[in-house]
């Protein structure tokens, strides 16, 4: 038996109208009371986070972290202890170290966006100032899944997928950036899924999730690959819906105040990194 759209519409109208004469038991005072309670809880949680943050900052100032691997945490230590506002959420490194053979340089953060929810497609738009534009995604939960997608040269799509850990990212170079990279604003899409998202189940259902090389079954390496399939992501989005979960994305490139570089090369006066810490993949 097949149905028509008008039958579906009629069914929804009839069912939606059921019990209408009783009137819903949704009352304004109950809504406001509930809202106030949520606000009180949020304020209490923020206060607790601030206290924990202050303790962590003191510990870090004592020199626990040195070197580029602790870059995000080092930024925390550099914050003044008496900051009026504590910005909860993951911290983006101030610089993105690029290593291209013998060439090493840092790209400063030129744009960042913070999000408080996961399970939603986010598009980040930015204006590149060189061919070496980098990006990094950091998350509250290091086990959250991150997928990024952007255009490569000759129109094909590229990106990364995996657990967030200390941050997921990468950067372009002359060979990977699309030809119009410097001619107009560019964008990339980012998806962050909760750590317990049913990636394996969805990947198996949609693509079969074949093992990669020597990996056994649909392990996390295979799951990461499957996350690059739009249909897997779409099914996950439908399954999960929008959920609370903080993360941030940073775009790294020549400083906006730097001299324009028509050839897209990074400026010569960019400081070399203190140590070689990153692969071209930037992870």
């Amino acid at each position, binding site marked *: *038996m*097949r*149905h*028509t*759209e*008008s*039958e*579906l*519409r009629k*069914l*929804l*109208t*009839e*069912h*939606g*109208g*059921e*019990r*209408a004469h009783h*009137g*819903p*038991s*949704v009352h*304004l005072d*109950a*809504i*406001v009371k*509930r*809202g106030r309670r*949520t*606000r009180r809880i949020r304020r209490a949680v923020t206060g607790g986070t601030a206290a924990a943050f202050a303790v962590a900052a003191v510990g870090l100032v004592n020199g626990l972290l040195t070197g580029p691997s602790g870059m995000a945490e080092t930024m925390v230590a550099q914050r003044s202890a008496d900051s009026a506002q504590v910005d909860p959420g993951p911290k983006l490194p101030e610089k993105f170290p690029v290593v291209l053979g013998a060439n090493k340089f840092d790209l400063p953060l030129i744009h960042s966006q913070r999000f408080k929810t996961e399970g*939603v*497609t986010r598009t980040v738009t930015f204006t590149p100032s060189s061919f070496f534009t980098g990006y990094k995604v950091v998350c509250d939960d290091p086990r959250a899944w991150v997928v990024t997608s952007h255009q490569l040269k000759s129109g094909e799509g590229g990106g990364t997928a995996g657990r967030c850990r200390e941050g997921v990212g990468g950067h372009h170079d002359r060979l990977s950036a699309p030809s119009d990279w410097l001619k107009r604003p560019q964008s990339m899409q980012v998806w962050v899924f909760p750590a317990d998202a049913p990636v394996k189940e969805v990947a198996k259902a949609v693509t079969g999730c074949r093992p990669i090389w020597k990996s056994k079954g649909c392990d996390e390496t295979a799951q990461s690959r499957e996350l690059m399939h739009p249909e897997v992501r*779409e099914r996950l*989005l*439908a*399954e*999960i*819906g*929008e*959920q609370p979960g903080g993360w941030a994305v940073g775009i790294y490139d020549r400083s906006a105040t730097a001299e324009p570089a028509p050839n897209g090369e990074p400026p010569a006066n960019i400081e070399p990194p203190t140590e070689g810490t990153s692969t071209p993949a930037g992870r």
Partner: protein
Amino acid sequence: MDDGFAEYVAHRRLRLCRMAYLLTQDWGTAEDLVQTALSKAWLAWRRVEGNPDPYVYRIIVNTHASWWRRRWRGEVPAATVPETADPRDTSAEVDDQAVLWSAIGTLSPRQRAVIVLHYFEGRTLTQVADIVGCSPGAVKRQLSRALTRLRVDPDMQTMKLERV
């Protein structure tokens, strides 16, 4: 803090509950869903610009999806809905509706939201995309899959069969 919130609730709560009922298929859950969504909207009310409907609908859709994900789902969706009696039989029409209503309950929350927003609320696919937070193309695909699962043919016109 009010800024029209009380008027909005008074004016829209019935419609919101109806929409929530079509998502949850349970009046108690629907009312709880609307109350939860409105309490979230109340917190951000001053920041809401223009028509608050898309914002409130979005909270309802997302809250429903998160509840749906948390609860245990013991039912096993059938790949095909069962065939019913002779379509000319009047009782078959009732059965058909029951089957269709039951099939709506097996859709994913996102698909259900797309169906309800488009066919019950009369929203365009672009408006639906704005509410559920994805591209119009993704909404179109969700809608197409949902209609296939419900066995609703968008090209088929209502045809009254002659009763002998």
